[in-house]
């Protein structure tokens, strides 16, 4: 996209402060790299905690009948697993990447609002702690599903107000983070870094940040009404008072559908960053990527009721939401086509980040296709609330968002730490993950089509075989992730010992400013703005 004539770093230690000493550094830091690291490590920890919850679910479902946990606790696990993964792992991980990479990619000294940056991280921690505390409360953690539908969710025990306030805190945290990202991108770009020269990762985050600011308050409003319905006698979701529980579903999904794009757009951005580097070609169709991202974001606001086809909407609503949803496949297809075309006739190599990125393109497409199947309203009556849905969204989240997060880790860890990760173990991690993730989720399509409902601890005997296969896949997948944990720790502590160059990957400097910085990247990024010289690319 753009290369740089770099002269940073020389005047680094004039009156410049490095990091503070000791633990306090991490608590009061305003540095985008420190905060990025905090976000990433926090997300990694949550990934394992959420993962353990998933394994509780898969252990229980290994065989029909109740084996290990009470049904109520099982339902808490599905609910908490989803909330922890969405709000504790995937979203924070992408915010962490944004913190680390956006200033480096656009030639800025730091994020635009550093103090607020600090606060948004700590609010995240506070929110997740509040949520986790509900596990130990009378009546158990919320068990009505991550969508928190009334009237069921109003039967939650003591946990309800805690869960609701946790949503508020997480919302404030996300909004602050998003505001910071938007201000950084609009206000801190180096001279010459025009909008249409920005790396796609920056573009996708710009649009994601907009989605966050638009929909997190909507979710906050929805749960506030749950709170008042339960504690202050209102009847928003109670037909006896003239309200309607379906209203909650509309509001939730007005948030919820953009929310799934909040998790996938940055994924697209990272994929668009990694694939060109290992294909040794510029990204195919840069501007169409930008427009496709923007159209997906726009469409994501007008399709929400495809989650509610079976709720009893007027027929005009069913039809409208069906066609609108199908439209999303178009810009999504543009993207898949562009990634493929980027690889076409490239001189590709298959380092771990690229392997994950390629797996993403293939497996995400499968998730997109099942999405398209479910967008057909009459068919969705069959699929809705079955394991088919579970398979769909896990394909677009695990081998997509999560795989790309892994890829990002392998791709940028050398830049962050100055150390090279162990490629052999990386490849092993990839192959274990990609095989087991399919053993885990592919059979769930069959289960769903055969009619197995989601969110149940026990099931009819005919579903036994595929559930067992799925659980085995789940355990292999879970164990494989320990390899990733090992690699992260090992790389931070020195990795292979090999000295990594500034550009890390062959010719990476042609693809972005971040590769012109030393490895590890200095504590303060661009103390003076770099010159952005557009390359012959495009």
């Amino acid at each position, binding site marked *: 996209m753009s290369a740089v004539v770099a002269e940073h770093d020389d005047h680094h230690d004039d009156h410049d402060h490095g990091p503070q000493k000791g633990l306090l550094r991490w608590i*009061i830091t305003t540095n985008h790299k420190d905060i990025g690291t905090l976000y990433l490590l926090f997300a990694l920890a949550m990934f394992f905690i959420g993962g353990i919850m998933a394994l509780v679910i898969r252990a229980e479902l290994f065989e029909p009948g109740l084996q290990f946990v009470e049904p109520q606790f099982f339902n808490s696990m599905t609910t908490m697993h989803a909330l922890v993964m969405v709000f504790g792992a995937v979203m924070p991980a992408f915010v962490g990447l944004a913190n680390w990479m956006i200033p480096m990619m656009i030639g800025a*000294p730091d994020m635009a609002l550093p103090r*607020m940056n600090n606060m948004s991280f700590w*609010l995240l921690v506070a929110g997740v702690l509040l949520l986790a505390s509900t596990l130990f409360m009378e009546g158990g953690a919320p068990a009505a599903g991550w969508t928190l539908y009334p009237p069921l969710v109003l039967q939650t025990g003591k946990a309800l107000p805690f869960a609701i306030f946790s949503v508020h*805190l997480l919302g404030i945290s996300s909004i602050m983070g998003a505001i910071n990202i*938007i*201000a950084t991108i609009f206000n801190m770009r180096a001279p010459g870094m025009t909008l249409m020269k920005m790396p796609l990762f920056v573009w996708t985050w710009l649009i994601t940040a907009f989605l966050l600011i638009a929909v997190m308050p909507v979710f906050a409003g929805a749960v506030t*009404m749950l709170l008042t319905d339960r504690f202050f*006698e209102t009847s928003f979701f109670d037909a006896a008072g003239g309200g309607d529980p*379906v209203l909650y579903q509309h509001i939730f999904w007005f948030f919820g559908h953009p929310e799934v794009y909040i998790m996938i757009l940055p994924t697209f951005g990272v994929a668009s960053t990694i694939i060109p580097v290992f294909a040794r070609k510029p990204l195919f169709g840069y501007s169409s990527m930008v427009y496709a991202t923007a159209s997906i974001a726009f469409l994501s606001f007008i399709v929400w009721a495809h989650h509610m086809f079976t709720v009893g909407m007027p027929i005009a609503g069913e039809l409208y939401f069906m066609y609108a949803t199908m439209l999303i496949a178009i810009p999504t297809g543009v993207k898949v086509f562009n990634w493929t075309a980027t690889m076409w006739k490239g001189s590709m190599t298959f380092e771990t980040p690229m392997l994950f990125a390629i797996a993403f393109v293939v497996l995400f497409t499968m998730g997109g296709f099942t999405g398209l199947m479910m967008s057909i309203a009459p068919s969705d009556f069959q699929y809705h609330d079955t394991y088919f849905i579970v398979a769909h969204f896990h394909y677009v989240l695990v081998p997509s968002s999560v795989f790309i997060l892994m890829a990002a880790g392998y791709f940028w860890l050398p830049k962050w730490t100055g150390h090279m990760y162990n490629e052999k173990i990386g490849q092993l991690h990839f192959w274990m993950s990609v095989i087991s993730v399919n053993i885990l989720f592919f059979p769930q399509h069959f289960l769903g089509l055969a009619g197995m409902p989601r969110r149940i601890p026990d099931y009819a005997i005919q579903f036994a075989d595929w559930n067992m296969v799925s659980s085995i896949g789940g355990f292999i997948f879970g164990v494989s992730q320990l390899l990733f944990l090992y690699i992260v720790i090992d790389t931070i502590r020195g990795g292979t010992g090999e000295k990594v160059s500034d550009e890390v990957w062959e010719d990476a400097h042609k693809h972005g400013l971040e590769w012109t910085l030393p490895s590890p990247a200095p504590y303060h990024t661009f103390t003076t703005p770099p010159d952005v010289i557009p390359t012959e690319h495009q």
Partner: protein
Amino acid sequence: MSTPGAYYIPSKATWPVLATAGLVILLAGFANYLNGASIGPTMMIVGFVMFILMLTGWFALQASESESGMYSAQVGISFRMGMMWFIFSEVMFFAVFFGTLWYTRNLSVPWLGGEGIGAATKELLWPSFDAVWPTNGPGHLGGKIVDGKPSGEFESMSAWGLPFLNTLILLSSGVTVTWAHHGLLAQHRGQLIKGLIATVALGFLFVICQAIEYHEAYTEMGLTLGSGIYGSTFFMLTGFHGFHVCVGAIILSVVLFRSSIGHFKPENHFAFEAAAWYWHFVDVVWLGLFIFVYIL
């Protein structure tokens, strides 16, 4: 780091993490209170005091940094963008409640009355329900207390008494804050301060009128949070708005205080602008409320 022209990056921040602690204690306290745990109120007070102290410290720091010229024009732009997007998030928050009002009035209440997809439901469940707005639903929830029991009868709030007065109050406060801004730009400090005093006074006057209105609603009209969907939407919308008026008036008071000790210059007065934008936002929301909640 304070080289002129350079983008100011504070090297550390102690206030944010403490503000977070205050906020989470406040909310956990509130949750405990709702669950009937006796520790709740104490936690709420501690958290609230912490939160306010931290905010005070944080804003005082920002103000002194601003006055000592540490913020370049570019930093000012970041602040302004931050404020604009924050207000946008608030717009979306209010949009939820306006959307709720729209949905219940135009869809769910008519359905309960047997329109469209609701025909069978009405016949089977509530054959006698008459779907007119305002309503407290087929269950006739809440309402005036008669013989110690809610009667299900309530009155809706008319637009042309206190609410209309409040509209005039808020609209004029929009004028006075603009007048104060002109004073600031023309370096007429007297005008700036007078304009702000008037704005803050009008803001609190609004809150007082609303308190009177609420009191009347609860004691005389049988209109409470519990009187069905009309009461729910009415109090949710006007309540959150009133809360925002309070916050706005407090922000403006801080700006007034800073003006009185000589802060702000024509070319550097972000805090004033932010407060004024916020105030106009609150104003516009009120106009929406006046039309959709009171008049229609």
